[in-house]
Each structure stands twice: as C-alpha cells, then as structure tokens.
C-alpha cells in the first residue's frame, strides 16, 4: 500500500484559509487531471466547507506523495505561498489514511459529529475523479470500504440520531404528534426570520392549509404570499388557534400574547379532542408555558429546542466509542483484504505453473506404463503426485499469506517469482 491522505480541515485551518483553498468544480477537474498525470497516481480531491483533502495512491515502491508536494500543488492552484499552506496540512499514511477516510465518511471527524452529508460528498468526489479516469483499484476499493463503514456506523450506533438545527428539532417534535399533514392546518403568528426558516421545514411536510396572522396585515400578506398561505386578521387569533393543528409563533411582543387564562377560555373549549402543537420560538415567549400538558396541547419554546439539540449532541458523543471500534475492525479487514488481493494472483500463478509441470512429468510416465496399470494404480500415482505438489507448495504459500497479513508480501512475491521462474 502506498496511500496518503493529506489535507486541512476546520481544526487546522481558519475559515478564511479554507475559503482560499476550496475548489469549485472547474478547478477541481483541473487539479485532479493535473495531479494524476503529473505524478502518475490515483487521485481523489474532496472539497467541502469544512475540509479540503487529497487522497493519493501510488504503486508500492514509488516515491510517496507527501505534505511538501501537496502544499506546493495547492499553493500553485490557488496562488497561495506553499509556506502558508504547509502548517495547515496533516498527513495520514497507509493504514492511518484508510482509517482517516473511514472516520471522515462515517462523520466521526465532522464539525457536527454524525451529520449525514459527508458520506454523500465523499461519494460525489470519488465519482468525479473516476469519471476523469483518476481512480484505480486502490481508491475504488477504498471508496466502497469507506461507504460500508459509514453505513455500519450509522445503522449500528446512534451517531446520527436526531437533528441538531433548531428548525429540524422543531419538526422532530411535530412528528412525535402527527405523521400525516395533508389534513393539518399550520398557523403562523408573527413574521420573524426564525419563523420563515422553520416554516420552510414545515412546508416540506405538505400541510393541508397554512394560515398567517400578524399585527401588521401587510406583513401577514407578505409571509402568506411566500408560503402559499392565507392571511387572516390579528383579531381572529383565537379562532385560528382553535382551528389549527400546529402553531408557529415568533412575534416580537414584549409579553405573552396567549396567557393560559385566555387559551383555556377562548381556544381550548373549541378544539374538541384534537392535539395542538405550539412551536413558540419567540423571545420573550408568546405562549404561557403552563398551557403545555403533553396531550391536548404541546408547547415547545426556544429553550426546549436548544436543550434537545444539546441532548442530541450528547447522545452522538456517547456513540463515538462503539463507532471507533467499528472503524478499527473495518480498517483491519480492508488491509487484510488488500494484501491478500495483492498476493492472490501470485499464488494462483504459482499453482497453475506447478500444475503444468506436474502434467508435463506425469503425462509421459503414464504413457510409458500404458497397459501395465490398472485404473486403481493409475489413480494412486496421480494422487501421489498431487499430494507431493501440495506438500511442496504448502510452506511457501502459507508464508506468503502470513506476510500478506502483515503487509510485507512484496519482497516474498518477488523472491517467489524468481525462484519458481514465474513471469512478473
């Protein structure tokens, strides 16, 4: 294996530098083609907002691609002095590079651990390089391996449990109460920036109806036009709440717009048994928190959403140790498979060659003894030759397989080719 993973990420490089080193598709194409032709190697370039990484594989024995070369190359492409790039780069070699790639794909090395985008970005980067003819057996095998690790980590641990953006957590809460939305009504109260973001997530649920109310009718009409909703006068807030299934509130009011007494008197009696979910992301809060009973009315405010975000991150951190164990297990498996794959053809060639020699010796012998042997004698002789061949080959093949496990089979393969006269 002659593999390097070299790059920088949010830990080693500030955002200004990451911006300078980032690749757009055109630059990425130029870089991959240039690097692969200039160094005659397999190359994949991963560029996201949190990392820029080069995965480079060369033939065993060739001079490895190192941090210095990578810094020069990145500096040249982005017109940044190499000396400014070198301190930002990290370098992982062979098994450590496989491990690094697995951790990146499984989102163990991400800014938000467990986020789901990175595996897709990595797949895209590999496919991009493959289309340009810049990948080969090593990096193709490595992509399949990394995606497999990412899948195992995702399904066997809670690393990707829950969501961490406030808007997504709000939708998660809503989904605990409802799972079909075509017959549901969303009421938007106010027109804060946060409301628009959360509303975007709620719109994706395809609700039956969206009502928008605001103290300013113009603002209500504006938000309603954006989301295909229906503006209603501020004075009809109680009626609208009685009809709604989900209320999203973000007014800038200085005190609660819906005290418990008002809710109990003007809204609750008109709702039947239907549950109302209130996402109160206004500061100060719009709804009296005592309205919440977790059955007929569920009120979630900004603190609840932030708490769940922290809880989710905590749960993900708990999954780190089992996830790392999966990575370790899979990296070993990959290294074993790769080494076996390397010595496999040589072993096969040896077997074929010795089979050929056996047939060459045994054929004339059996011809000479033709007519003097019973079928049983003939079979015994053939079996004896085969047994002799197997016993003779057992030790070299076992040694080769053992060396493959250690990743040191190259010299043995060469020695075997010389000793047995095999073509390279």
């Amino acid at each position, binding site marked *: 294996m002659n593999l390097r993973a070299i790059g920088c990420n949010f830990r080693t490089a500030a955002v200004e530098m990451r911006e300078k080193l980032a690749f757009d598709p055109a630059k990425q194409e130029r870089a991959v083609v240039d690097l692969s032709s200039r160094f005659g190697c397999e190359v994949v370039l991963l560029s996201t907002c949190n990392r820029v990484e080069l995965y480079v594989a060369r033939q065993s024995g060739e001079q490895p691609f190192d941090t210095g070369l990578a810094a020069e190359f990145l500096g040249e492409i982005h017109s940044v002095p190499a000396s400014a790039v070198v301190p930002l780069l990290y370098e992982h070699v062979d098994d450590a590079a496989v491990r690094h790639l697995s951790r990146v794909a499984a989102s163990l090395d991400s800014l938000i651990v467990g986020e789901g985008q990175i595996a897709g970005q990595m797949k895209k980067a590999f496919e991009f390089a493959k289309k340009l003819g810049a990948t080969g057996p090593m990096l193709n095998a490595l992509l399949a391996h990394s995606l497999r690790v990412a899948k195992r980590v995702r399904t066997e641990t809670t690393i990707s449990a829950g969501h961490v953006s406030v808007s997504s957590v709000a939708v998660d809460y809503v989904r*605990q109460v409802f799972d079909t939305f075509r017959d549901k009504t969303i009421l938007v109260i106010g027109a804060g920036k946060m409301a628009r973001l959360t509303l975007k997530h709620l719109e994706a649920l395809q609700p039956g109806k969206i009502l928008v109310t605001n103290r300013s009718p113009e603002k209500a009409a504006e938000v309603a036009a954006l989301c295909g909703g229906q503006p209603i006068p501020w004075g009809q807030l109680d009626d609208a709440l009685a009809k709604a299934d989900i209320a999203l509130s973000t007014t800038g009011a200085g005190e609660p717009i819906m005290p418990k007494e008002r809710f109990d008197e003007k809204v609750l009696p008109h709702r039947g*048994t239907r549950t109302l979910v209130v996402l109160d992301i206004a500061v100060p809060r719009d709804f009296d928190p005592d309205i919440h009973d977790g059955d007929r009315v*569920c009120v979630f405010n900004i603190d609840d959403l932030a708490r769940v975000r922290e809880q989710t991150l905590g749960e993900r951190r708990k999954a780190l140790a089992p996830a790392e164990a999966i990575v370790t297990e899979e990296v070993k498996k990959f290294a074993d498979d790769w080494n076996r794959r390397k010595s496999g053809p040589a072993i096969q060639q040896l077997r074929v060659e010795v089979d050929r020699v056996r047939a060459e010796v045994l054929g004339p012998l059996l011809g000479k003894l033709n007519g003097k042997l019973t079928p049983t004698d003939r079979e015994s002789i053939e079996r004896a030759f085969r047994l002799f061949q197997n016993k003779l080959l057992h030790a070299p093949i076992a040694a080769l397989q053992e060396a493959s496990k250690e990743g040191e089979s190259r010299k043995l393969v060469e020695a075997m080719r010389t000793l047995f006269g095999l073509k390279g």
Partner: protein
Amino acid sequence: MPVPLQNVTLACFGLSYLLAFALELGRLRWPRPSLRFAGLILGAAGLFAHTLFLSIRQPTPATAYGALLALAWVLAIFYLYGSLHHARQAWAIFVLPVILGLLAIAFVAVSTEESPELDLNSGAHIWGAIHGLFLLLAAVGVSVGAVASTMYLIQARRLRKKLLPLGQIKLLSLDRLEAMNRRAVNLAFPLLTVGLLLGGVLLRHYHGFADNWMSVKFLGTVGLWVVFLALTYLRYAATLPGRRLALLTILTSALMLLVLIAGHPFVRGDSP
C-alpha cells in the same frame, strides 16, 4: 400426520416468542439489523408452530384455554405484520408481552382444556361458532386498542416532559396511536354487541336463560359492553382527553381478559 408436528407444544411457540422478545429488547441496546432479522425469524417460527398447534389440537375457543390461544394467535399475526410494516417502531416490545401473557394464562388453564363450560359456544353449533368468532374479534380489537393506548401513554409522557426519543424506543405519532385506538375500539364495540346478543339468544333457546344469566361470563360480558358504551360516549360526546381514554381502554382490556377466563373452573374456584 408426521409425529414431530403432533409434538408441537405451547412451550415450543411460547419459547420462540420469548426469544424474539429478548432479541427485541437487545436491539434497544445494540440496534443491529441482524438482531431484528433474528427476532423476526423467531417470531415467524413461533407463529408457524402456534398455527400448527391450533390446527392439530383444535382447542375449542369456548374454554379459557382455547380462547386465549386463539387471541394470542391473532395478535401474533398482528405483531409480525406490524414489525414488518413499521420497521422503525418498537412494535414487538409492546405486542409480544401481551402474547406471552396470554400464553402464560393459557398454560395455567391447560389442565382443564377438555371441559368447555357451555355447550352453546361449541364450534359444533354454527351459531355458537359465530358467537365465539364475534367475541374473539372483539377481544382482538380491545387488545390492539390496549397496545396502542400503552404506546400513547408513553408517547404523551415523553411529550409532557418535552423529550425526544433519542436512542430509545421509537413510537408512532400521538395522532396515529389515537386513531389506532379509536378504530380498534370502534370495530370491537359492534362485534361485541352482536356477539353478546347472539349469546343471549342462544342461552335463551338452548340452555335456559333463567338458569345461566347469572354466570360470571355472561354478567362480565354485559359489564364489558357497558364499559364500551361509556368509552364511546366519553370519546365522542364528552371529548375526554386522549390520555384518559387510553387509560380507560387499558382498563377495558383488563376486564375483557377477566371475561375471557371467567367461567373457567379455576376462576370460579371449582378445581383444577
């Protein structure tokens, strides 16, 4: 019929369901697809053995033993369907304990398997069979309602405490669970009504109503019907909150269980 099939016992499928349940519990700690797959295989094996057992032994549903085994069988189908259909939800965690509980009670009742209390319930009598079928389906409805209600209470508790199910048992939404409970009870009520009316008519024509109407089974079933009526009223007329309706449904299922095992000698204290 080959001998091994005849040797299927309650313990065979009971153990299969128990192991499937243990694997489902294991999945809460280690969420691996292999555990889910193994659990489903064991559950399916249990259902297969259960089906064989019922078709070979043919225990009459007129006895507590037969009724409990038949109810457990329908619920086992419901469990497998739910586990396949709602792969992400911890369906089995809630349904399997009900099945195991029914089998455990049936196991206690096994010694009196051959002594049906009332002939009118006998499968040999067409109306008795229809009466039994209606009551069995009503019992399935109540059991499903009780399972949905238990999930509802847990989900409502989580929401009251503003928790999200991170790394815990995943449940259907509150809305869906309420709908499931409502549909199950709405289906069970007419079935129970028809079953009860048929039972009353059969009792009057074949066995003397005056002698038998005081039986625990008959009175219990009438009581169950009244509770159902109250449940329907509270849901639609009094708009009782979902949490209380869920609790009432669970209580109704407990009463139904008593009715199912009522009339059995060990409940009445005759023997075993």
